[in-house]
């Protein structure tokens, strides 16, 4: 989570620039506020017994600090992932199932599909790539790297799309040509996961 917080902080202005083009220029500031709160919430006094407890706490903290659409969406995603991981550590197989639950939760709440120019466009290929990697026998680090690459590619692929969900959808055709901020922040989170698992 520290890596995610650092990534969000480092890319805050970039996220805000992307959001200024097709939204209301607060995605970077909102996520930084959320992950700063997460860093505090996971401070010295919090000792989770399972991976799930930690991620559920992350989810609740995001919901109660981010606001906007990204608060509930990211919050629900972390909570859904956390609910699947009631063990002190998680292996690649467990995480594959949990990530799928996270994706389902985001899709249910946001009612967004692939190609709507939302975070789903990064999250869906990332989860699929993670699944595929695990199915072909790769370990956690390689699966996380594959997911991060797929998320990044998915985020870039939102550039030519016309937004059909969320605030950018109100711009209609004018949303074309801009990378989606939510897909971009999703790619950042998977990049942080890949970075951390590579060193594990």
């Amino acid at each position: 989570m520290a890596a995610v917080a650092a990534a969000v902080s480092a890319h805050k202005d970039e996220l805000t620039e992307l959001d200024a083009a097709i939204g209301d220029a607060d995605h970077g500031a909102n996520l930084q506020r959320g992950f700063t709160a997460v860093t505090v919430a996971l401070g010295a006094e919090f000792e989770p017994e399972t991976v799930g407890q930690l991620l559920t706490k992350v989810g609740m903290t995001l919901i109660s600090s981010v606001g906007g659409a990204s608060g509930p969406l990211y919050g629900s995603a972390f909570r859904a992932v956390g609910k699947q991981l009631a063990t002190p550590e998680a292996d690649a197989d467990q995480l594959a199932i949990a990530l799928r639950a996270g994706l389902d939760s985001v899709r249910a709440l946001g009612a967004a599909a692939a190609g709507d120019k939302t975070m789903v466009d990064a999250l869906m290929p990332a989860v699929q790539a993670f699944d595929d990697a695990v199915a072909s026998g790769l370990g956690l680090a390689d699966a996380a790297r594959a997911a991060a690459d797929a998320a990044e590619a998915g985020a870039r692929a939102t550039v030519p799309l016309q937004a059909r969900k969320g605030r950018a959808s109100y711009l209609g055709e004018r949303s074309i040509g801009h990378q989606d901020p939510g897909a971009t922040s999703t790619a950042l989170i998977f990049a942080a996961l890949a970075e951390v698992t590579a060193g594990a």
Partner: protein
Amino acid sequence: MKKFLNSADSFVADSLAGLAAAHPALRVKADGPDGPFVARRAPTRPGKVALVSGGGSGHDPLHAGFVGLGMLDAACPGEVFTSPVPGQILAAAQAVDGGAGVVFVVKNYTGDVLNFQMAAELAAEDAGIAVETVLVDDDVAVRDSTWTAGRRGTGATVFVEKLAGALAERGASLAEVADLGRRVNARSRSFAVALTACTTPANGKPGFQLPEDEMEVGVGIHGEPGRSRAKLASAAGVAALALDAILAEPVFGGGDGDAAGGAHAGESAASGDSAGVEVMALVSGLGATPLSELYLLFGEASRILAERGVSIVRSLVGNYVTSLDMAGASFTLCRADDELLELWDAPVNTPGLRWGV
């Protein structure tokens, strides 16, 4: 950026502290972990339905400035242009529930909808508070289709909060207040034009650049670009552009009942003709437009409406639903009837709207 600030981070809290200092009838509860809410200092009368609204800050006087007799019982300001969070909304609902339930007035923006939805679930399940939600989606610049998140909620929020608030003061039930709110929304449509972008304190620079001779057509209230850009028109041209879009809606007798109205068509007049329609009209500045220009626009609007046979029976001109320091104006019409007019004329005493007291 040049603004009166202590810091961008404390902008909302500092502003609310000033609101409370200026209006002793309000209290700001700001020390909770989940963010502040603004409520009437006097407790909700037992049996009175409470109205709670909220949304991103930066739309003043919406919503905190509409807390008081005859309108809202509490408002939950989020960060600038960012919806409040569920815990904050739940805390406000618990603070003002008078036992008769709470109506949430929610503008149709994805973040607002999701956070109020989560708060409504928490209120019902954990706090045992009956909640009804009125979704405001009046902005005709965004057409309904299966491909968008629907119309935005903007200026009609003032009508919904005023009229439903008046009905709640009379002791109406939760269902009656919510139904009235939905009826007002179905009878209201808005359209806005901007001359400049606004600058959020956190971002520090304008959201978009607009050449001197151009305007953003069909803007919302979050500093986002509009649906299109056009050469700057005269005030008469701007008013005509906005009113043409609004009067084309079935509720004002316009249009041909095609897909444009969709599920939100509301209460239709005779198709294709607005003559004889009575409306309450709001011309709201977006934050940086002088009252003189707003009155000028209202004059053009009243002339155009008269030509179409539409009577303005109540009017409101000023800054009511704003977008920080955006130069621009929004036009909102609400189709009147006797019940709505009586509720409109009922006493209201809030920082942003006050009469009859």
